[in-house]
């Protein structure tokens, strides 16, 4: 990997982290665990369409680990990591099918997969199936948030030409 490439990845990771930390300061109107705007995923979606799979995975890993530290909620790492892995795999597959004009759709599906991953992790960790009741609510809020981040990423991709 060239130094130029590495610097780009580091820059994207730090941008994602800054967005993540700023989002922590925004009060959450929905007191339901797991409901979040997920603005930092603008960077993830952007990276999925501009960088190689391994490079995108690196950005997300750094974001997850440092994000868990900065937010002071290391226990949330398991849930967010499970979501992020499922979401990333899905989006990397979708990248092959979807054209550049439907990036927002990719982001919506990514958000849904993220929520499914989160809930699966919660069911396994809590050893109770009752948390699965959150899934429909998370899917609704998640796909709305995903559509928003997807449109943002689409605007970014159109503006930043390579």
């Amino acid at each position, binding site marked *: 990997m060239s130094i130029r490439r590495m610097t780009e990845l580091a820059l994207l990771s730090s941008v994602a982290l800054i967005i993540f930390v700023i989002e922590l300061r925004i009060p959450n109107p929905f007191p*339901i665990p797991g409901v979040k705007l997920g603005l930092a995923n603008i960077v993830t979606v952007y990276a999925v369409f501009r960088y190689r799979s391994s490079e995108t995975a690196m950005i997300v890993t750094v974001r997850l680990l440092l994000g868990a530290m900065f937010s002071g909620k290391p226990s*949330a790492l398991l849930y967010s990591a499970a979501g992020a892995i499922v979401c990333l795999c899905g989006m990397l597959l979708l990248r092959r099918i979807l054209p550049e004009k439907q990036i927002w759709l990719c982001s919506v599906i990514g958000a849904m997969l993220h929520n499914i991953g989160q809930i699966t992790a*919660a069911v396994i960790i809590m050893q109770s199936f*009752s948390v699965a*009741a959150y899934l429909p609510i998370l899917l609704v809020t998640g796909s709305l948030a995903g559509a928003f981040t997807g449109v943002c990423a689409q605007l970014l991709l159109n503006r930043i030409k390579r």
Partner: protein
Amino acid sequence: MKNRKILFAVILIFLVSVCLSVLILRHSDKQTIEIVQDGTVLYTFDLNDTEARNIRISTPDGGYNLVQIQNGKICISEADCPDQTCVNMGVLKSDYLPIVCLPHKLIVRFAEGES
């Protein structure tokens, strides 16, 4: 064509989730409460027969949640976890939507079936 199918599938999932969410958020008429920690049931009781009291539930690693019962309603009034989601969730209302504290693996919910 393939893209259109994906789009329809996404819209379908979205609509189904909206319907399910409405169902899930309905208020419950059950009265039996269960407090579950890490997969094991700690307490079961009837809300109507229980006078106002507080139950302190500790976790093995030193954390705690304070469960408050008052006027036939139950909520988590205090917790020492960083995210406080369980406290912000307020009173338990729905059959399907338990109060959950993810960091402490604690669930407060209506019990299955009538007892």
